[in-house]
């Protein structure tokens, strides 16, 4: 039996785990005791991370559409056909008629090469990935406020916090190792404040639970600021020395009195006061947030309001302080870092910046497009309208994970050519012209970058099934078919190229990455990495306060309830892997809509009743589950299930700044299926 230390494939915590390999098969996983985040622990998905690897459904040979059938072909045929079709479309409609969606499940090396494929080979900046649907508001909001969209501190830093505000994060289910760290801090004396409309386990364990109405985050955050300013709990030295724009913020905060906040959010003034006092008085406080904050049409404003809170209290740049946008996928941070975004090259170098472009042109030996590309959701719209005609989707399943599923189907069907690379057949591969079978995390080498900016090594434990290949090889093959040099003997050589063009990864090489990895920025080979950002200064000089107002929330009498979506502890995203993990699927075998018992009584619904949930975009038949975890007026559906895809109901209302769709608040109505 071999044991190989690698990184968990699921969430952004980036736990270290050991794969147990017997006769060329992964037979188990266990936690890595020396790893700085897992410290010998894992969540249930991590313990079972190996279980889907050898599932018989794995894609094993390249497939090409022949009418209604998919025929097995050689790699050469699949790749040459893909290259030819993409080239034909480019000749007819220009490079911006092509697009690539990369995967936050892929390695840094894969994301880098796919972004390079879009820019250097296809000639378009139309490259994006699922971060658009999760932390685009963090990249946008924290980018302008602090100068970097990433988590400021490592997870471990929370152990030294005196107060922790968790908002829009179902931490025990979505980032269990962060939750464990927070609860450890609480046991050591930190005050835990949780703001969540749902009574999650985290809310249940909190010292103070705020339950705001959906979509009112700016109001209560500004309200906390109002009280903190009123009580003189701001950090004046910090504000004077390291920030700008505070006076305008102060004026804004004045208007968010506890009474005004209660009218908007429903939070009793007493609770808000307790939270403000605990946060304001703490010598070291941190803010942890996730999709419940960002997946709103006011996502960027929500993030800016939280940034105001940490800046006003001087909670940046020290151990125990900071702002922690929790990344969903194990490598969504890395995919962003690698420039799988329409406006950035790797390391957030702007495509519009002529100097950055010249540098990349020199490195890649080709001309590069100057105009920013389309974002993920915009790509789907462009596809439906015929402006995008050819697409490569690597390891994403937009049919389940993107908003407004009906539109996604129309968009993907309108494409003249679609190639999809994945490890399992999905609802998206079903629409593809070419399906490319690729290696899972246990079958390839490379690096993932976790939510705390920790760049860590992923190691090949077994060989891919059948003819499946690591995507680094697939991307390199495609690059060569577009006459772009791509002679990489190994993923390490790709990392060599990444570090040569990416200042924040400048000192990273696979050889340097031990069990603790390296946190970026790591500009040079002798640099130890940076665990805590903004210690002496901000990348933008001074941090900035932004005046953000609570959006008016229109009521729609036809759709009196609000649907919010999320994930369960036992599944990951579209369930491609977890639904093929026997013990995980058994925990949550089907989708349900969570309804508050009071709402349910009014509707005549009991647990187990089939109901129809309708929104302006679609409808869905699903089983009801009664629970006080959701407040009155709100219903909740996990989005993992193809049988009851929650995103049939969601809309594409985008946040104006970051273009994230407002997935967390869709007006809906519910009736009994038989009524």
């Amino acid at each position, binding site marked *: *039996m*071999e*044991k*190989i*230390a690698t990184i968990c494939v699921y969430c952004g915590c980036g736990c*270290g785990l*050991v794969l*147990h390999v*017997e006769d060329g098969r992964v*037979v*188990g996983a*266990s*936690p*890595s*005791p*020396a*790893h700085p985040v897992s410290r*010998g*622990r*894992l*969540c*249930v998905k*991590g*313990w079972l991370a*190996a*279980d889907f690897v050898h*599932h*018989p459904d794995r894609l094993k040979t390249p497939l090409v559409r022949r009418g209604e059938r998919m025929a097995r072909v050689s790699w050469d045929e699949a790749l040459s056909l893909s290259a030819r079709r993409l080239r034909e479309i480019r000749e007819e409609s220009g490079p911006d008629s092509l697009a690539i969606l990369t995967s936050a499940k892929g390695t840094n090396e894969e994301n880098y090469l796919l972004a390079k494929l879009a820019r250097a080979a296809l000639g378009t900046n139309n490259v994006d990935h699922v971060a658009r649907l999760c932390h685009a508001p963090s990249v946008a909001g924290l980018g302008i406020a602090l100068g970097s969209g990433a988590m400021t501190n490592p997870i471990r830093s929370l152990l030294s916090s005196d107060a922790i505000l968790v908002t829009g994060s179902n931490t*025990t289910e979505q980032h*269990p*190792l962060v*939750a*464990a760290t927070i*609860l*450890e801090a609480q*046991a050591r004396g930190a005050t835990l404040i949780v703001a969540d409309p749902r009574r999650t*386990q985290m809310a*249940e*364990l909190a010292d103070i639970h705020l339950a705001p109405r959906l979509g009112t985050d700016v109001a209560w955050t500004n309200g906390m600021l109002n009280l903190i300013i009123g009580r003189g709990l701001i950090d004046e030295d910090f504000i004077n020395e390291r920030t700008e724009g505070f006076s305008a913020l102060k004026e804004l905060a004045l208007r968010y009195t506890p009474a005004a906040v209660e009218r908007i959010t429903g939070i009793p003034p007493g609770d808000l006061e307790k939270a403000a006092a605990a946060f304001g008085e703490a010598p070291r406080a941190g803010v942890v947030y996730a999709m419940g904050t960002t997946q709103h049409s006011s996502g960027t404003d929500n993030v800016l309001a939280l940034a105001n809170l940490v800046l006003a209290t001087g909670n940046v740049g020290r151990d125990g302080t900071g702002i922690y946008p929790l990344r969903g996928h194990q490598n969504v941070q890395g995919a962003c870092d690698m420039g799988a975004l329409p406006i950035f090259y790797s390391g957030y170098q702007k495509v519009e910046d002529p100097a950055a472009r010249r540098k990349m042109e020199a490195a890649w030996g080709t001309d590069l497009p100057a105009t920013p590309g389309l974002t993920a959701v915009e790509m789907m719209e462009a596809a439906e309208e015929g402006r995008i005609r050819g697409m490569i989707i690597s390891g994403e399943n937009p049919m389940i994970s993107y908003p407004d599923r009906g539109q996604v189907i129309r968009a993907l069907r309108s494409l003249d050519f679609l190639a999809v690379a994945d490890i399992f057949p999905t609802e998206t591969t079903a629409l593809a012209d070419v399906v490319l079978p690729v290696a899972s995390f246990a079958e390839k080498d490379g690096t993932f970058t976790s939510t705390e900016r920790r760049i860590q090594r992923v190691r090949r434990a077994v060989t891919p099934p059948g003819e499946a290949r690591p995507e680094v090889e697939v991307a390199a093959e495609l690059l060569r078919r577009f006459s772009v040099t791509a002679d990489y003997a190994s993923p390490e050589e790709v990392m060599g190229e990444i570090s040569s063009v990416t200042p924040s990864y400048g000192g990273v090489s696979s050889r340097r990455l*031990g*069990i603790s990895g390296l946190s970026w920025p790591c500009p040079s080979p002798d640099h130890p990495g940076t665990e805590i950002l903004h210690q002496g200064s901000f990348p933008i000089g001074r941090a900035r306060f932004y005046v953000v107002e609570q959006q008016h929330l229109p009521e729609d009498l036809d759709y009196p309830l609000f649907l919010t979506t999320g994930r369960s*502890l036992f599944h990951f995203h579209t369930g491609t892997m977890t639904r093929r993990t*026997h*013990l995980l699927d*058994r*925990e949550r*075998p089907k989708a349900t809509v969570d309804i508050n018992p009071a709402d349910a009584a009014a509707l005549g619904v009991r647990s*187990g009743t089939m109901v129809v949930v309708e929104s302006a975009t679609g409808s869905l038949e699903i089983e009801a589950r009664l629970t006080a975890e959701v407040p009155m007026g709100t219903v909740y559906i996990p989005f993992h299930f193809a049988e009851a895809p929650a995103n049939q109901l969601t809309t594409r209302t985008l946040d104006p700044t970051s273009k994230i769709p407002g997935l967390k608040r869709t007006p809906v109505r519910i009736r009994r299926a038989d009524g």
Partner: protein
Amino acid sequence: MTSTTALFISREDLIHLLEELSGTLEVVAPVLVGDEAAFATWRGEALALDDKNPLASPVEFFLPKKEVLFRYVQYSGRYTFSEDPPKARLIFGMRPCDLLALKVIDGIFGADLSDLPYAGRRRSTIIVALNCTSPGEGCFCRSMGSGPVAEGGYDLLLTDLGRGYLVEAGSPAGVYILRAHHRHFEEADIEDIKEKERLLALAGEKMIKRGPFPNPEKIREAIDGADWEEAGRRCLACGGCSFVCPVCHCFSVLDQGVPDGERLRCRDSCILSGFSRMTSGANPRPDPGERLRHWYLDKFVYIPEKTGLFGCVGCGRCSRVCLGEADRWSFFREATE
């Protein structure tokens, strides 16, 4: 030379011995994986014996987390079946707590109708145990009667004396190895034996403050009186306590692949709600607290009823992996005070 005589082997000779043995057997030993000791096939790398007992117990070599019970192939409407024979293995460096865990499992998988795959692996595995001279922080083997000194259940037993190891045989297979490879061993002198006694007494003393042997009745009372709802509120449902436990052995069986495929046996966990949920949807243990209570009852009431041994050997692993920071040992301490 007899099996009761103690021998001595130097660190260098130990490596030579393992090299020779690995010619005919798969030698499994603790080696460094990701900076920490883990049991894996030994290929001549440095042994990681000074570290804590590895987090993943070597019991997995007898009860794998996932095993193929057999393969099925359909041909012209007929099924044929095939299975792999057990591997000939030597596990080096197994600690006393894991040895006792194996004995408990023998009482379950070996009793009445013996489980064939388990029995096959048991028969084809040689165990070289290692007495624990430096117990880990969370270990309470002494309280559970499993360590730090191994009592039976091994083929060979080693004690680290610093400059080398004292070696004792515990079975005919052990005696055979000592004879067949005699040139690596020398007679131990009386000082070596005294040194062993001294080191093990010291290790035992370190653990004295970790409480006396628990009284089953007191434990039952403690289980009945505990606030399981509160325990359940803090449990993050990672399943780690049962996945890591060397005594936990629940499994589920599933067939993967149509028409050809494999029948798999996989580790399961009573901490997961799906374990006790019935097809109708009803669940006799719907809350995490109730499942935790069951976990303790199994270890301290049901398994002892069946095997005469506790279902816990005090290895401390469940506390190491707990995401909810439940320190099992504090529970036992309260139960026995």
